[in-house]
């Protein structure tokens, strides 16, 4: 690894100043499971690494009924999947974060890093999109909020400008009769990267015969994780049936822009988008009805 300097500031302000001062020759370090690999193999070359794990805002998990959930960008995955409130209130998020890496990776890797690394296959990102999560970003010009579906702009590319730091991710409280589910396809059950991942959220009407709102998002079928807005919109007012799920799945397939690579062909991925969209919608509806099924 090429030499670099290391600092571990304790405030957002110090971190932003350090990041802004070095332009493209600096990176924030959270879990390091992507960054250290990229530095070691020469994909990245920096003069300064800013360890953000000592900043309290980036290390907090706060859940308040009625206000929702805020997860600091440097909170490791194990704290998310073991958090009793998150497991109970946001099981769709636990589906996704629980799939990231094995035990040792979950001990370090963060959802903030998953987002900032902006891999098209990042498992937590479709789940965050369907949960309507928003990012709090602080930079030299102040604070701004970015919806997760707008955060990634290309493979490894994000909306973050010079000196900007992702501080936390906020999830609104779930509305009544809603459910979320994330599923992915991989050849190996653990320690693998999604061939396709699909997240779905549904809100059932108060008396539950119809869907009043739905969202679908997909991973590994485009240059970024994709929000398939039409696939969710078509379900509004429909019964949660196999017919309506098939219609949503078809629209998700239309929105997908898969490529052929070492993990799968474009045709296989488009097929998987259909299968996983139907299953994820089934799982989300089960959860909305109060069950815990994950659609499998």
């Amino acid at each position, binding site marked *: 690894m090429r030499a670099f300097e*290391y600092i571990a500031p304790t405030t957002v302000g110090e971190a932003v100043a350090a990041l802004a001062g070095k332009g493209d020759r600096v990176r924030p370090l959270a879990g390091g499971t992507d960054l250290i690999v990229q530095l070691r193999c020469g994909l990245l070359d920096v003069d300064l690494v800013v360890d953000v794990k000592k900043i309290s805002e980036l290390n907090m998990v706060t859940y308040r009924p009625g206000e929702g959930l805020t997860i600091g960008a440097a909170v490791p995955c194990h704290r998310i999947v073991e958090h009793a409130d998150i497991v109970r209130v946001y099981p769709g998020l636990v589906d996704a974060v629980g799939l990231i890496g*094995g035990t040792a990776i979950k001990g370090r890797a963060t959802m903030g890093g998953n987002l900032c690394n902006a891999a098209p296959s990042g498992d937590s990102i479709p789940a965050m999109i369907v949960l309507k999560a928003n990012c709090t970003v602080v930079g030299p010009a102040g604070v701004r909020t970015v919806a997760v579906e707008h955060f990634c702009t290309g493979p490894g590319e994000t909306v973050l400008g010079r000196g900007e730091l992702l501080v936390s991710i906020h999830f609104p409280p779930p509305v009544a009769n809603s459910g979320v589910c994330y599923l992915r396809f991989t050849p190996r059950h653990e*320690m693998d990267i999604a061939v396709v991942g699909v997240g779905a959220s549904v809100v059932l009407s108060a008396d539950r015969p119809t869907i009043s709102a739905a969202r679908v998002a997909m991973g590994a079928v485009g240059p970024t994780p994709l929000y398939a807005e039409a696939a969710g919109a078509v379900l509004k007012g429909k019964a949660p049936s196999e017919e309506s799920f098939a219609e949503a799945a078809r629209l998700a397939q239309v929105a997908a822009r898969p490529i052929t690579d070492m993990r799968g062909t474009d045709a296989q991925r488009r097929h998987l988008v259909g299968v996983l969209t139907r299953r994820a919608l089934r799982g989300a509806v089960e959860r909305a009805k109060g069950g815990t099924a994950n659609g499998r």
Partner: protein
Amino acid sequence: MAAKTRVSAKINGEQVEFLCEPRQSLLECLRDVLGLTGSKEGCNDGNCGACSVLLNGRVVNSCLVLGVEVHGQEVTTVEGLADWRGLHPLQQAFLDNAALQCGYCIPGILITSKALLDREPNPSEERIRTWLAGNLCRCTGYDKIVRAVQDAAVRLRQTGQEVNR
């Protein structure tokens, strides 16, 4: 070359100080600076688990941690498992079950298994296999490893021994 930083950490229960460059991984610091060569370098990118250590009781890949990050923290390596009473029950169970061939992956597997048994005294086979999914072994095919962890869990429950020793 960046200036070396002084790092103070508790390693295997002992407070130690060492000097390292920011670019040196915890694995390099353990092996090349501190002479603790039990943790192995396999892939050096977080896939194989041979370098697994406990950082404040949590399993991490020491190849994906910078040495400077452990300042003020606690690290446990395979060298920290045995004590004056002898081998840790996990180590004894691995020997008794012949759960190793070349042995290269075993320090990481022992450390990862210890973290599981510290939390869950009676894990299912599926739980053990899932927990160890980030630790690759190219010799045994895992069955003996899983049996050894189950055996160690039985021993630890029977003796009522304090697991987190």
